[in-house]
């Protein structure tokens, strides 16, 4: 480890790796990645299924293969990496305090910081279910780690709550390893997982998907022995008399992901209530000069390909910050209007030249609709859509001419 670094990247998963390579290739030469685990690659190491990289590499890679493409790039450059290193805190002056067994507790204050800590699984779904707290209840990601990294099967008869992609992937994975997956329950009328995963993970193995259903009771004292699943009404309330009983020894939760922002909060970085990540300009700089954020710590992406793309923006812009110093900002806000749950970036800095790609999600499923971007009641851009679903991130590209025309804040809304 050197005395000083220009850029320190917190997290060596897909976001941190892409940011590091991009920062280096854009002229920053003094870069350090801090990674908590004993190897680079982050969550991709346990995502052994394929389907990664279709957008970026035009082939279907497994998670470890996708990660390795970037690890190779990092290794080919003069980029420092500290593994088994946990960051304890980040301050608004960019001082990072971290700990590992080699250096003990240490601090570094680089010129720029890139936050790429990724996300964690939402666990709240677990709290509202009556019953004791027996063994055999896992988040889907934890089960994935047990099976794919540690090599043991956490249970034999499984019920999965939530039909997010990790839940669907684990339904197949545990089936392949000899478990019986009895049901996947989804409280919403639609699955938040990709259609292809419903097809190849559930339908291929005749695993039933119960939409508008949730687990209303978990039974068992030392180990799960069964669950009760009920249908819910339009207010998500269980309907009496619809109870189904499943004998099972394992329950997996796959109820969504939230950005991992403890460090962000600690540094006093402004966060968005909508994304639960930092508020950023289009260059992925947070509201604190020289601190950037990218990947799932900023917004939970559908595909790792998009994480890489976003992280390359953050890396390049962090390099620019280090080489050219702070630039004056001239911001306008991007706001989510009707039927849109969030828009990222939340701020557009008019002093930064070039097009801006807006990322957003819709609140519901809409057919034959129109995305409208407007400012001060003036429509700047429109985009027709056959279908929009909450599970798929939408984008609109605003040209610099369009941005120049915006007089006030930019609002993105969906019209039906």
């Amino acid at each position, binding site marked *: 480890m050197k005395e000083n670094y220009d850029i320190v990247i917190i997290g060596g998963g897909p976001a941190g790796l892409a940011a590091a390579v991009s920062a280096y290739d854009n002229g920053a030469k003094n870069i350090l990645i801090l990674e908590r685990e004993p190897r680079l690659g982050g969550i991709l*190491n346990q995502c*052994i*299924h*394929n*389907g990664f990289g*279709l957008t970026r590499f035009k082939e*279907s*890679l*497994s*998670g*470890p*293969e996708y990660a*390795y493409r970037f690890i190779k790039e990092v290794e080919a450059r003069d980029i420092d990496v500290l593994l088994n290193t946990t960051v304890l805190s980040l301050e608004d002056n960019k001082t990072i305090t971290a700990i590992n067994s080699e250096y003990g507790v240490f601090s570094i204050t680089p010129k720029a910081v890139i936050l790429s800590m990724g996300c964690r699984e939402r666990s709240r779904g677990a709290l509202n279910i009556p019953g004791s707290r027996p063994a055999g209840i896992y988040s889907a990601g934890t089960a994935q780690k047990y*099976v*794919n*990294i*540690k*090599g043991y099967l956490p249970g034999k008869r499984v019920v999965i709550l939530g039909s997010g992609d990790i839940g669907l992937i684990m339904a197949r994975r545990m089936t*392949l*390893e000899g478990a019986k997956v009895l049901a996947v329950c989804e409280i919403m009328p639609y699955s938040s997982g*990709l*259609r*292809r995963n*419903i*097809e*190849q993970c559930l339908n*291929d193995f005749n695993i039933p998907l119960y939409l508008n259903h949730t687990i209303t009771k978990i039974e068992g004292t030392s180990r799960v022995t069964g669950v009760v699943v009920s249908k819910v009404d339009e207010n998500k309330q269980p309907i009496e008399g619809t109870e189904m009983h499943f004998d099972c020894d394992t329950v997996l939760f796959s109820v969504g992901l939230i950005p991992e922002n403890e460090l962000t909060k600690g540094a006093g970085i402004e966060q968005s209530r909508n994304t639960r990540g930092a508020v950023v300009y289009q260059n992925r700089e947070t509201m604190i000069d020289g601190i950037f954020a990218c990947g799932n710590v900023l917004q939970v992406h*559908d*595909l790792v390909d998009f994480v890489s793309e976003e992280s390359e923006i953050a890396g390049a812009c962090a390099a620019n910050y280090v080489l050219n110093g702070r630039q004056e900002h001239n911001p306008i806000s991007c706001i989510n209007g009707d039927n849109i749950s969030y828009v990222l970036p939340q701020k557009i800095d008019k002093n930064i030249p070039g097009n801006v790609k807006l990322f957003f999600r819709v609140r519901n499923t809409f057919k034959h609709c129109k995305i409208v971007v407007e400012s001060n009641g003036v429509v700047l851009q429109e985009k027709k859509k056959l279908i929009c679903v909450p599970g798929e991130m939408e984008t609109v590209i605003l040209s610099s001419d369009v941005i120049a025309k915006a007089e006030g804040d930019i609002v993105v809304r969906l019209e039906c």
Partner: protein
Amino acid sequence: MNKQLTCIECPMGCLIEVEVENGAVKSVKGNTCLRGKMYAENEVICPLRVVTSTVKTVSGKMVSVKTDKPVRKSEIFEVMKKINSLTLDRNVVIGDVILANIDRDANLVATQNYND
């Protein structure tokens, strides 16, 4: 006879309709690209899937693997049996063949470097 399929080749998940006559594909509709057409043609005659899994090693660590070509869907559990009977006792790099011809001409290959 018409069959409705969801293409699994990419995250778009196109809904494809295949017209089959006397066991042969007559037409494919709804696909956005050629991959989808090929997928649909296979799917109604002999469905194929890439299998991904892990192989244990003598050190106890797991190494992730995949079939380098899709295998017959009907043989997935046979393929899994073969995968789980293996114990890797050598180092491998991504792409190394761990078991040749695990189903027809599909090989089992490493998707992770393993270096004990």
